[in-house]
């Protein structure tokens, strides 16, 4: 961190947007560390959940940016262990959702987490066009985006023989409705922060 700035008193911090949008007030967090202790991904995270909470609490723009650029918000599996055990009942998975959306919008996605984002995007594309998850199509779309051509190539035949791989998608009767949903969701106010 550059100079030892005092904690910023700047008006709209990321934490304030979070509170407005999701109703989750991270001022309640008193850094007990129980969420990081129970998080299955804490070992791999550059900033486990209790640390990024502290970074957001300071309201310092540089720390906020560091959180949005971090890999940990993408490693979060939303498995709810932290929310179940948080003594202050803070909905940490909801905070992670918010941070991921903000990170994607500001184009600060951590390079090593791009594949996770690509997977989600591929997953959503499949829903946008067919209304349901077309597994085969989603995997191909993911491979194109992530250029991971060889992954799972060997297991595909096994899956096909076991009847687990449908070649054709199951379409929803009104695909147009799906596209309308996606367009509307993209414009929602949270999407713009």
């Amino acid at each position, binding site marked *: 961190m550059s100079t030892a700035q005092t904690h910023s008193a700047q008006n709209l911090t990321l934490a304030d947007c979070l509170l407005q949008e999701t109703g989750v007030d991270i001022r309640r967090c008193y850094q007990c560390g129980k969420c990081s*202790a129970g998080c299955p991904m804490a070992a791999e995270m550059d900033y*486990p959940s209790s640390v990024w909470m502290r970074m957001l609490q300071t309201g310092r723009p540089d720390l906020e940016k560091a959180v949005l650029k971090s890999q940990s918000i993408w490693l979060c599996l939303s498995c709810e262990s932290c929310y179940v055990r948080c003594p202050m009942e803070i909905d940490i998975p909801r905070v992670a959702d918010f941070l991921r959306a903000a990170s994607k919008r500001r184009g600060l996605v951590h390079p090593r987490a791009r594949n996770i984002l690509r997977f989600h995007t591929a997953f959503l594309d499949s829903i946008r066009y067919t209304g349901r998850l077309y597994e085969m199509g989603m995997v191909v779309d993911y491979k194109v985006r992530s250029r991971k051509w060889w992954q799972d190539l060997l297991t595909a035949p096994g899956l096909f023989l076991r009847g687990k791989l449908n070649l054709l998608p199951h379409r929803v009767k009104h695909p147009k409705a799906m596209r309308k949903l996606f367009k509307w969701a993209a414009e929602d106010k949270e999407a713009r922060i």
Partner: protein
Amino acid sequence: MARIGVFVCHCGENIGATVDCARVAEACRKIPGVAHSVDYKYMCSDPGQTLIREAIAQNKLTGVVVAACSPRMHEPTFRRVCSESGLNPYLCEMANLREHCSWVHEKSDVTTDKAIDLVAMLVEKVKRNKPLHPIKVPVTKTALVLGGGISGIQAALDIANAGHKVILVERDPSIGGHMSQLSETFPTLDCSQCILTPRMVEVAQHPNITLYTYSELESLDGFIGNFKTRIRKKARSLDEKLCTGCGLCTTKCPNKKIPSEFNTGLGMRTAIYVPFPQAVPNKPVIDREHCTYYTKGRCRVCEKVCPTQAIRFDQEDQIVEHEVGAVVVATGFTVKETDFFPEYGYGKYKDVINGLQFERILSASGPTLGEVKRPSDGRVPETVVFIACAGSRDPAKGIEYCSKICCMYTAKHAMLYKHKVHHGQAYVFYMDIRAAGKMYDEFTRRAIEEDHVQYIRGRVSRIYERNGKLIVQGADTLLNAMPVEIEADLVVLATAGVANEGAEALAQKLHVSYDSHKFFVEAHPKLRPVETNTAGVFLAGACQSPKDIPESVGQASGTAAKVAALFSMDELTREPVVAVVNRTAPPLYSTCVGCFLCQSACPYQAIEREEIKNRNGQVVKTIAKVNPGLCQGCGTCVAFCRSKSIDLQGYTHEQVYAEVMELLS
């Protein structure tokens, strides 16, 4: 014509900020009957009080209205000022402009108008106040102390040493409370039995103290100085006078497999038992739920072996009545059990225990005779994890407060463990170390520096068992929340201090209010911590909120001082706010027609029948009469009487009628 003085207080900024006090004073000047109306920065300050005193003298005032804070706060202050200046104190009333007006409304004319209304209302009331004189009531100079823990013992001894009779009632078979279960006490590590037992013996031998153990409060009636209490002496199933406490029965009793409450379920006891060796009184009790004679009608071994034939199987509970002048509530607290924690295994792991259980393991009179052995297989634990804030500071679990003593006894536990198992490794998972007492922080530093207890800052997320080891999953928030996993042999949870079972029922018997956690509520958190809203009932120790021994003893001596002060007066002066039946000229004598329906409404049985006789002794009429000693001034009879024949001094029909009419005019 009444000459009322109105004194509007700014209370610094508290009232002045939102209420235009000058306008209030000026508006009141126009009320008929108001002879003097001023506003001042601090009415309750000395200059403020002298202002009133002079105003009374100069304007020969017949009534005073102080428009300031809540009467619950400074009514006594201003009434004393009036009585010192020769004005009957009950001709002085307070309008609550602070808590009920300035603090809760925005600054606007509406707020000031409301303030004027409130003052005008009280002016109308004061116009109709009558001078009243305190009621003299005798004081029974005996104190009732509920709870025989260290607080109860200290309070009883102090009151008894002040020369007054004390009745000490303890629910368990022996006094001593939780302190008798402790091994050693922080911060000096002196053994709790050594410093407690002498006090317990002193209680037993003190001429002024009547001790009832294995007994509970049945009921408490009456009021300060004149309480009538009924105590249920539960049947011990033996004659205490004959029993010499030899203990033969407790050794011979065949039924030895009952989990001992004193040892928090870790050790066993017999059906006829003495909770712990140094018990006072050292007389056993038969546990009728488990004793084979009561369950199956057989055995009676204790009766056979008893040298003095003291066993009384058919003994009944006894109700003992006493008159007391004051009550000290020192019923203590308890700690949460381990089954309260889902993430720590819902209490299914034997080796996850709470602080009190570890105390018993450390204690020389405990089930393991002082050796640190874990409950599951009795092996000496090589690695022990202590978890602070287990349940406390956890709004999700409904306990948002800090239990105050766990940081200290957790450091003590870790230290004592290291003293007994030198090669063992102790970890403490903590959030903050709260060691604010004298020599307290130095004590925790000693645990870290000299006894090499490993303190890790972070709360444990989960505990699970894996091939005989307890896996404690935590994180070190000082190392970027790095996950920490420890294979422990024993885990001690410093669980939250909570109110006792039945605290709510006791509070209702004593008419004492209690908070949402069932701890008793003190009269004022800062200024009257050992009193309750019910005059004559005092609070000491952890029943008011979790606290350590020094503080409990301090509070206990505090209550003793309060009781001694109360008993220093032969007569108690009581608020003259009592009901009075009106009397008129003969032949009516009173508008009361003697239906006596008010008698059944009175909670204090303060209404008696009075026969009015004419000159030659014939009973002309029987009317109701209020005994000022018993009447507490609730006014239930007053609002109930159809013919408005009974009235409450201080809140008469005329006064409340005038208040309502003024308020809405």
